[in-house]
């Protein structure tokens, strides 16, 4: 007993971390297997292209959800990072043949930009922060719509990609079946990376900041930097989504920076549930499938979607992921009691 008491806190944490890793890795391999299975089993190109879109937006939602989960902050301006990433990849591709480098530089650049921005804006509290991000995002929307030359203004920009990107033929990025797999693997890798990051002290620290920022300072941590880092990571994940979208569609337009895009993705996040990393991704897929299905049968999809959104939010405050987790826990507890 006394032996464990000498340094129990650290040991406990290490034990927990050690037991997390194999579980994470096995979940990751299951996720990869699911992706492979879907890409092989789904024959319809229509369904495949829908799923590809959904997964690209799932990456976007993952980024926005990460901000909400670790920072408790709502951004109405994340489309900025999504759209800007697409434009940077597009402009970069027109300047150099090495699109892989361009994509990496774009994501890093957006990370720096978001970090610097966050240092200024994260002090703004609550809903005003949301409105501030909206204002910044809309400013860029206006700038890109107005600008001529490289971005093509309101007409959007077609991107001419070189024949090979990241060592793959460009066709692989533009065919739904293969692009689904690429996006899916990116999504899984990002979820894994973020999970590992949250397994370090960064996880509880940012969680604590979200819960009670002032108290965190009174236990001896500065809070500005971690919050800015969360914002930057969130922007970078979103930027990965933007780059995937640009690769897949070969087209970017100012509309991809519009606040309504941020709003839609925020709905995906809340629909899926922001208490887990994977919740927002589930939300994105459900949103796409739902809209496709309802949109096919009625022109009133907006109203139906509005009603469903309200119903889900009211009935399942923790979103779909929260509902699923709750059900799983009940089953576990139930079987535990019987055993």
């Amino acid at each position: 007993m006394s032996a464990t008491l000498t340094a129990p806190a650290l040991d406990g944490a290490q034990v927990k971390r050690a037991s997390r890793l194999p579980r994470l890795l096995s979940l990751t391999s299951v996720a990869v297997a699911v992706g492979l299975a879907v890409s092989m089993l789904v024959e319809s190109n229509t369904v495949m292209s829908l799923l590809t879109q959904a997964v690209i937006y799932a990456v976007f939602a993952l980024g926005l959800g990460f901000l909400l989960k670790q920072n408790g902050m709502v951004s109405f301006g994340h489309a900025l990072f999504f759209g800007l990433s697409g434009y940077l990849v597009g402009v970069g591709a027109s300047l150099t043949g090495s699109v892989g480098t361009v994509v990496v530089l774009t994501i890093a650049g957006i990370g720096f930009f978001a970090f610097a921005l966050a240092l200024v804006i994260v002090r703004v509290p609550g809903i005003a922060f949301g409105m501030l991000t909206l204002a910044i995002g809309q400013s860029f929307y206006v700038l890109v719509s107005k600008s001529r030359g490289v971005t093509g203004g309101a007409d959007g920009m077609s991107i001419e990609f070189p024949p090979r990107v990241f060592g793959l033929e460009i066709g692989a990025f533009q065919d739904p079946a293969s692009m689904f797999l690429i996006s899916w693997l990116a999504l899984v890798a990002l979820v894994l990376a973020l999970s590992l990051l949250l397994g370090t002290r960064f996880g509880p620290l940012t969680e604590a900041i979200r819960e009670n920022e002032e108290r965190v300072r009174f236990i001896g941590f500065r809070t500005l930097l971690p919050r800015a880092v969360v914002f930057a990571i969130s922007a970078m994940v979103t930027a990965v989504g933007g780059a995937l979208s640009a690769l897949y569609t070969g087209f970017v337009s100012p509309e991809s920076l519009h606040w309504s895009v941020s709003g839609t993705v925020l709905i995906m996040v809340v629909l899926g549930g922001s208490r887990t990393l994977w919740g927002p991704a589930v939300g994105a897929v459900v949103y796409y499938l739902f809209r496709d299905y309802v949109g096919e049968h009625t022109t009133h999809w907006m109203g139906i979607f509005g009603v469903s959104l309200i119903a889900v939010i009211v009935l399942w405050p923790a979103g779909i992921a929260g509902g699923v987790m709750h059900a799983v826990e009940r089953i576990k507890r139930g079987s535990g009691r019987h055993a």
Partner: protein
Amino acid sequence: MKTRRITNLLAAAVLAVASGASLAQAKEPIRIGMVTSQSGGFTAQGEDSLRGMQFAVDEANASGGVAGRRIEVQIGDDESTPEGGRRVAEKFARSGYNLLVGPIASSISLALGQNLQRWDALYVSTLSKSDRITGDSCNMRMFQANHSDAMDLAIVQPWLKDNAKEKRFAILANDYIWGRDSAESFTKAAQKLGKEVELSVFAPIGTKDFAPYIAQLKNSGAEAVWVALVGRDLIAFAKQAAEFGLTTSKRIIGHAYIMSFVVKATDSATDGVWGVLNYAPEIDTPRNKALVAAWRKKFGRDPSENEVAGYSGIQVIVQGVEKADSVKPTAVASALSGATLDTVWGPAVMRAEDHQLVKPNYVGRVKRVGGELRPVIETAFEASIATPAPTTCKL
């Protein structure tokens, strides 16, 4: 008793469907994907053009189809965004409805154009106006059935020369690429004729209160104002210009201004406004006369320019299929390229160099005709003047 009647009805229905099916089986149906704006900023135009497209399809099917083929359609909402348009169009194209038509915003048309090869589809633009559709973004599978911006601007100078006594002009345009281009072209045209543009003001898209701009226009020494605003901004401006008495103190000339949906949405605010006019029911061609008569019979009014644009888009596809005797997009595309089509504007060539439909254009004025306010053609310009030569397109 009741049951038997229903059974009889059912039997009849089955028979009808079966006979229809046997007809269609003769040849593959024409599958058209209508991608249009049912929500977002272009909803009103979307509804109009959809009515026109639907009318053309019904008309063709009612007369037994096109060369033995029935037309089947899928209708989807592009939400007024390229992303939405691309998603719907891809879905349609991949499920066989690969003859596409319908979007309003040029950005959506350009986003579709980009993907036609990949989807094995063909696209006829009916309401977009960007010159890039037949310029640097042109391609084998994309056709411009609408009047392009270049066409609308090409008639400005000849019209000004013979019809405008005013010496000094002012410009109000939306502050983005289309508005700026329009303003620039107008300025050039005016200056070539020795006229002056005293003031150019640019309002952001989404401007609700135009009073600050109207005050500047009124204060300028201009005798006439060239206006290039889009959709909702235009409607707000039209009402406010009338409210401030701008419409009566200076001649207003619009780039895409005198359109039925604007006239209808603004009471009498557009009375007396001049502008480029792409279509009016009085166009004297057999095809147009037939259309107007049929339209009046069904709706009890004349068709609007957006409705006719939609209608004409379907006409282009139908005639392409007839000429190719195939519904394969590549076959239809090569049949259309360079072909002479029968349109409401008379016979018109689908120019092989850039896939622009070569047709006449008009300047008109909003007037009361039989108690109803509508745009009326004042001056017509034949196709050779109205359609500038191909520019950067290489097909």
